[in-house]
């Protein structure tokens, strides 16, 4: 059986290799916020709303930390409608620490160069763990309507 099969396999090998080998990653999703990750703007800033209407989500082009992987409360640089804007991550799809909520979408809040938010309201719940971080985040947290 094996002997008769062997030539057949040999003749098939190059094409089979092309068929069976994968050119994409099949590892588990990590949902890490790296460069070119798509986000969702959750404040009511004009530019964020316009981007949502166009159906073009903002993309991360830089993460302001040493690891260059965005975590909860990190500052990122995003492109929105062809403009570069700074933003803070306020919700992640990735698995979080115990008692820290994991959201269904990756949420950001846009800020200007001084660190004050562009919108004046945040429509989604904010993780309560961000309250201990301080810095520019306190300005964002003052807009939040609900904490989880």
């Amino acid at each position: 059986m094996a002997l008769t099969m062997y030539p057949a396999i040999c003749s098939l090998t190059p094409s089979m290799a092309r068929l069976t080998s994968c050119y994409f990653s099949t590892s588990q999703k990590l949902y890490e916020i790296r460069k070119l990750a798509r986000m969702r703007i959750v404040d009511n800033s004009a530019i964020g709303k316009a981007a949502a209407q166009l159906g073009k989500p903002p993309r991360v082009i830089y993460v302001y930390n040493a690891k260059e992987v965005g975590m909860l409360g990190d500052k990122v640089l995003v492109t929105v409608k062809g403009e570069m804007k700074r933003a803070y991550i306020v919700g992640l799809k990735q698995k979080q620490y115990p008692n820290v909520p994991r959201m269904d979408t990756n949420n950001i809040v846009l800020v200007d160069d001084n660190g004050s938010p562009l919108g004046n309201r945040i429509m989604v719940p904010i993780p309560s763990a961000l309250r201990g971080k301080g810095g520019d985040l306190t300005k964002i947290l003052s807009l939040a309507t609900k904490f989880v």
Partner: protein
Amino acid sequence: MGFKGLFESGQGFTMTDVEGKLVPERGRMDVEGAFTHVSSSQVNVAYKSTHVINYKRTRAEIGQALRKKPNYLHYDLVDKHRSSPLQKGTDNITVETDVKAPRDYRFIMPEFMPRPHFEYRDRVLEKLERRDMLRRRTVINIPEFYVGSIMAVTVSDPFAPNKKNRFLGICIDRGGHGLKAYFVLRNVVDGLGVEIFYQMYSPTLHSIEVIRLEKRLDDRLYYLRNCPLEHSTFSFDMEPIALPRGAQVPVNTLKLKLNPKPWDERWERQDLKGIEPIELTPKMIKGIQKVHNASATPWKKHDLMLHYRSKVNEEEEETIMAEVYKENQLLESMRKTSKATLKKKK
């Protein structure tokens, strides 16, 4: 002179009488040599006489004394100790537990069961963890709940104004062994799905309430992420509904319809009972077949050792659950008496 001869007889000289004719020439030469240095040899004698060696030992005896000693006690030695009259009355130390836990007890508190993998078992650690868990249960009431129950958890939050944070949601997962037991709650807040992972025995938990006690058809409900949001939306001020006493836990046989693709996982490949049948595309069918082919191991059902090792054996399970049950009975009785005393004070 006679003493000197006696001493040296150990070193292989066949000397019986120093002044006799039987003494070999070599021996006499040595003795004469020794005789000339009496003062030095006398000192040596005093020094060497501290070593008492039994030269009458046979070769076999020496071998026995120098043999490699094993790292354990010989069984006969232990058995002799066991059967000695001094051991009388000590067999009362091991008290057999007559209390037996109900058969479904392990489903109510599955986290008390150890991890079945035999390579990672550590019975001392398990025992200590069980004790710690029971100690934690004296402080916090961890009720009976299942995947699919609606629960509310209050956690201490140092940054919240009232130092507490309450979250309510449906339990979508439960697992872990020992102190690492966990559960996951899901709810939709302001149109955004939120999931929180809680460690069951974490000291930051203030309370765990069960709002609605029920089961679902699956062990994990992560597919709620890809279902319409209304299925995982629950009001934060839901009133707890108590089941009538002695009633069985109801099973919610709700079948959900998944959103159109893209999905977080390939739900069609997981044998899910809580979702409506999916319209399978040829690609999906191929994927399902691939998974089935990969896991096709018809010999596994005959592998007795595999079955035995895949779970904690029944006798051990019974002893563990009996121990937990006994402790819990004690705890409940203590709680009742404390409640009664509180009532009396009022």
